């Protein structure tokens, strides 16, 4: 059974049709990279997977939860899906540790002490043990993004969504964040990664999806898609970014 199943997904903002019918199946442990030109609907697609955006039509089933089902508790669903944003969105009024502990304690998943232990372990995992008491404003971009990843992992999700997690970073910091994502992939996390880093997509992805104008133009293994793209638009796009 698919971990994520998307059928006929459409999304419009007013009269602006952004997603025009997507069908995607993602298996457990699979790492799918989504590439495509700006404005093609990549972010919107991700945001439909945890219903940060309402769906206009189609079905999305994530971890067994049908997002169209009104009885499904979205807050519960979202605890199964971590999301990492381009601009980190750390909570500036809290320390690094408080950022990570907020969800587990507020959701009564863990006692304060347990949440703290988990948070410290996660910080160690992203290489920021020494920043536990720092405020987000005191961190570099790469450090912020690693904290944001740790924060998402704190509720112990089954799926991680990354929306251009390295686009806002200075080049020298991209590597440290990609390394964390790479480690997650190695641990078998199911992930959907929207990225402009073609080299990274080629390296970690089990499958690459090329989107343009709200549709999936082409998908395949990195070798297929990067080595031998079938569609003209894919070839066009790749020739510009590679």
């Amino acid at each position, binding site marked *: 059974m698919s971990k994520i199943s998307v059928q006929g997904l459409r999304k419009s903002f007013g009269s602006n049709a952004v997603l025009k019918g997507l069908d995607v199946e993602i298996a457990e442990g699979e790492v799918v990279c989504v590439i495509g030109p700006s404005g093609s609907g990549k972010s919107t697609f991700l945001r439909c997977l*945890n219903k*940060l955006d309402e769906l206009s039509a189609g079905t999305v089933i994530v971890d067994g939860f049908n997002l169209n089902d009104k009885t499904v508790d979205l*807050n*519960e*669903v*979202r*605890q199964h*899906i*971590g*999301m990492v*944003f381009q*601009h980190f*969105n*750390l*909570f*500036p*009024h809290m320390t690094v540790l408080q950022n990570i502990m*907020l*969800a587990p304690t*507020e*959701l009564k998943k863990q006692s304060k002490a347990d949440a703290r232990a988990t948070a410290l372990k996660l910080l160690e995992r992203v290489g920021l043990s020494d920043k536990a008491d720092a405020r987000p404003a005191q961190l570099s971009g790469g450090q912020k993004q690693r904290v*944001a990843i740790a*924060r*998402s992992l704190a*509720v112990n999700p089954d799926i991680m969504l990354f929306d251009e997690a390295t686009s806002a970073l200075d080049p020298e910091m991209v590597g440290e964040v990609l390394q964390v994502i790479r480690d997650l992939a190695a641990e078998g996390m199911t992930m959907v990664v929207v990225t402009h880093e073609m080299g990274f997509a080629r390296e970690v992805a089990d499958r690459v999806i090329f989107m343009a104008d709200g549709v999936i133009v082409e998908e395949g293994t990195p070798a297929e898609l990067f080595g031998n793209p079938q569609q003209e638009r894919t070839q066009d796009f790749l020739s510009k970014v590679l």
Partner: protein
Amino acid sequence: MFRAGKLAVAVTALLALAGGFVGVSAAVASQPQAAVTGETYVIGTDTTFAPFEYREDGELTGIDMDLIRDIAANQGFTVEIKSLGFDAALQALQSNQVDGVIAGMSITDERELIFDFSDPYFDSGVQMAVAEDNTEITQYSDLAGETVVAKRGSEGETFANSIKDEYGFTVKALADSATMYDDVKAGNSVAVFDDYPVLAYGINQNNGLKSVTEKEQGSSYGFAVNKGQNPELLAAFNTGLAELKSNGEYQTILDTYLEQPAPAVASGFFGLLSDSMPALMKGLGLTLLATGLSILIALVLGVLFGFFTVSASRVLRGIASVYVSIFRGTPLLVQAFFFYFGLPQLTGQSIDVLTAGVLTLSLNAGAYMTEIVRGGIQSVDPGQTEAGRSLGLGYVTTMRRVVLPQAVKIMTPSFINQFVMTLKDTSLLAVIGFAELTYQGQQIYAANFRTGETLLIVAALYFIVINLLTMLSNKLDKRFNK
């Protein structure tokens, strides 16, 4: 107490009628009215209408006060005076919250429809006055081409207007006596037309004016009870008044306030400062009380309606936006008048001045607070909400733990600003007779005519308090919103 008294009177009156003892009351006219002996009556009066009622060293004094107390003593009853303000006193009388009103009130046909009046105890009238050093104006005909000043809506204005064409002068209207006298002293107007007793008292208090013409015949003042109520009190007042007139006490009272010039105790600025401080401090207390209560309520309203403005519900957003536009779109002064005078007429429920004042200020400040809260919440990056929601935190938790702490920090300087604005806005409540700081200042210069110095003291008090509170707020802000 006085209710039981009224019942007793009603019973007595009935018995008297039934028994045919109608002649009895006439027979006792020159002696104390037995029905009132030992009773206590609540008497309403104006707050300040010198020389009839005003405060001296915090004590109510004046012609009305001396008169009612002496009559009470003469007739063997006790009075409890309530200084309510003129309009409020009349309202209280109509609703039987007081037994009688003495407030320098003219006996008019309209008032006689709803009240029973005593015999007139004072003949008022309009008189003209000019600056002390003015030797050119000695009669109305000297006013040709000049400007005179009169109190808006008063008999003085009516009279001045009635003769202005004949003598060729212009009439300017101002709101209160102290301002009018200052206007004449400053030379902006050459003469003032004012109620004779008020004018005589001012001159007597060395206000820098003198009268040069005789007073014009005008209305008479009377003591009033509610129509058909407390007839024994009215009778006792009339009897007592007659006795005071015949034994000379009445004339002594009038002379005290109108004839004998007050010893010229121009006490200097520091004298004024120390004399006025008790009243001003009381006013300041009320200012702070009204500000504190209003800000607290406004905060609750602001948070409530602020959340409405950012909610997903169109109805809630609509309610909030109507509320805000009404209270931001009308002057505070109009709101104050509405709540104090208009609302009681619509609901038939009288409202005390503190309640009306706090209602006005809190609803007004609440509208501004709503906008501050809305602005604060909306200025928090939407990415913060998305991060919270994507973690599985619900709307409420995301608001409480993520958005609001950041919004509050953004809002705090605006809150402090609104706090200061509301404190200053309390001064507008003086117009509905709320005895706050500005009002107390007005009362003081209405009695001593030292407008400039008094206002300086009042302004200094506001300045000190506002700056202290601002400093304190900023300290707290720094401490809690690092």
